[in-house]
């Protein structure tokens, strides 16, 4: 394996991590503030991707499509919060899991009904197509690089939002004490709707941008959702910082594992067996990572609630 290939794969890992961070930050924010576990978070990801693909097809502009996808995800999030989710805040986690599982069924089948079963395709916008040469001579697709840059910008933005703004102050107050924030006279149901819609918008953004790299199809949100769960279990539920570090860790370990493990097994196994065993074990790697971290830190690396 050459160094340039390795660098490229590390960047791919970080790009995957960026996607996971967008998903995980919304999940962890909703859990931290409202104490809700939301399995339907992947549905917002799917909503973003579908609406972006659809609007881009109508208008011919990826950027209009992207905007439409993010806004649609936020709007769907707000509506879902308003109709279903707010009835679940005082329920136990089992009820939350079941109700949001029901939402997944409704969203997935509803989307299949509207858009059909065949996948949609979305092209990388012209302004971001092609690749750039990074220092060290690594050729890397511009679009993927742009996703990484966007992820860094979002992480900084979220940090500023939570640490510097009134909304952020209320979010932090809500995390620390749900009764307190009500007593302070903050309109708590509006705050909850806002936080939920923000999380949905981030998931929608992830789905919209990934749509140009993979096919847009029903069920696309679920594998990402489960990886995002692994991320926040590793990072510590309720911690944005944990979500960021967990996301990059999972993205890089998963990507490198898939590239390196089959090669590693070829050193002492027949090539045909090695690629099978290597691939199978690589697919398990992040879960082993998760189990290892949990064995030492049962509440994740940066647990917000100890």
């Amino acid at each position, binding site marked *: 394996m050459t160094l340039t290939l390795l660098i490229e794969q590390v960047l791919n890992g970080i790009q995957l991590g960026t996607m996971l961070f967008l998903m995980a930050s919304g999940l962890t924010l909703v859990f931290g503030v409202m104490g809700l576990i939301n399995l339907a978070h992947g549905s917002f990801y799917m909503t973003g991707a579908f609406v972006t693909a659809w609007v881009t097809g109508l208008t011919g502009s990826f950027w209009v499509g992207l905007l439409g996808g993010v806004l649609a995800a936020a709007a769907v999030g707000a509506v879902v919060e308003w109709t279903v989710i707010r009835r679940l805040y005082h329920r136990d986690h089992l009820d939350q*899991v079941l*109700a949001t599982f*029901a939402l997944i069924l409704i969203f997935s089948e*509803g989307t299949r009904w509207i858009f059909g079963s065949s996948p949609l395709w979305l092209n990388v916008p012209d302004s971001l197509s092609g690749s750039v040469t990074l220092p060290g001579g690594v050729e890397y697709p511009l679009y993927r690089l742009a996703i990484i840059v966007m992820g860094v910008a979002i992480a900084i933005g979220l940090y500023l939002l939570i640490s510097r703004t009134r909304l952020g102050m209320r979010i932090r107050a809500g995390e620390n004490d749900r009764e307190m924030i009500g007593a302070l006279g903050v309109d708590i149901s509006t705050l909850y709707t806002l936080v939920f819609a923000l999380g949905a918008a981030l998931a929608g953004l992830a789905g919209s941008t990934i749509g140009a790299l993979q096919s847009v199809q029903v069920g696309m949100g679920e594998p990402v959702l489960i990886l995002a769960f*692994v991320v926040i279990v590793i990072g510590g539920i309720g911690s944005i910082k944990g979500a960021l570090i967990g996301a990059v860790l999972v993205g890089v370990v998963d990507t490198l594992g898939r590239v390196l493990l089959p090669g590693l097994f070829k050193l002492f196994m027949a090539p045909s067996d090695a690629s*099978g065993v290597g691939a199978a074990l690589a*697919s398990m790697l992040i*879960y082993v990572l998760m189990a290892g971290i949990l064995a030492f830190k049962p509440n994740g690396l940066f647990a917000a609630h100890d």
Partner: protein
Amino acid sequence: MTSLESHIPSRSPSLGRRPLSRETVIGWGLILVLVAAAVFAHLAGEPFYVNLASRIAIVALAGVGLNLALGFGGMVSFGHAAFFGIGGYVAGIGAFHAFDQSPLFGLSGLPAGSDLMPVLWLSALLVCGLVAYAIGAISLGTSGVYFIMITLAFAQMIYYFAVSWPTYGGEDGLPIYIRNSLPGLDTNNPLVFFTLCMALLGLALFLTQRWMNARFGAALTMARLNETRLATAGVEPRPIRLAAFVISGMITGVAGALFADLNGFVGPSMLSWHRSGEIMVIVILGGVGRLCGPLAGAILFVMMETLLGGLTEYWQLFLGVVLLAVVLFARGGVMGLLAGRERYA
């Protein structure tokens, strides 16, 4: 101590001849209806419906397994498809190697596969027990929402392993060409196979009732209701939970082995997280922590699947709406509606 002596005799009727509770009556009623439907379909020459009854019995059995962890133990496992699928793969892999007379996993030195159901069931029990022990030992260090996500993640790990392991079909799964056998019985006869499924379901229900009425059940109930009380009473809560989780995984594993034989096929879809959700839905629809809840839930689920699925290919949309309505407005499920609130003796 006079009131002590007056207490014991008043309890003795509970030794056996207690009046049947409404819940028990409903449970027997459901079993009888299912058996009658299967026999009737068999006499009418409709093997499709006999197999449908087998399917109900099997998913009910998977639900009985999950109910032990979820309902009686309060452990919200979102990863029981792992055990269902592993049970299925045990049956599939055993049959695969029995079919071509090769040693297990193709490794010389290991015994050949087997197509005997009892051997496969015991293997499913053993393998699922070990896997459940490993998953439970790690996951039970956590609680609440962590536990849900971790069980989901581990099940997903096994799913991806099955998808990327090429020997047994990978993504395409593994067909079972000849249904596994039981000496003296024609397992290919749908009614015989149904009888086997029903017998195992009945056994699991009987054992669950026995366990929950015994000391183990008392400790498990206390672990769910009040962990501090249990520890203060001198019983370590975590091993009690772990034991229940292991047994729960084993029962669901046997259901998986039967399911693979029913369909003549095992694939990664048996391990998918949708399957975990379905098993959970069956338990919830029927009534969490009610002995016969999973049976009621399985009947409802398979009927909806068959009836709605016949009307529209988007039937899961309606399943979602029904589930949402049950969670928001009708906690307690079918058994809650039919038999009233749960009572503790």
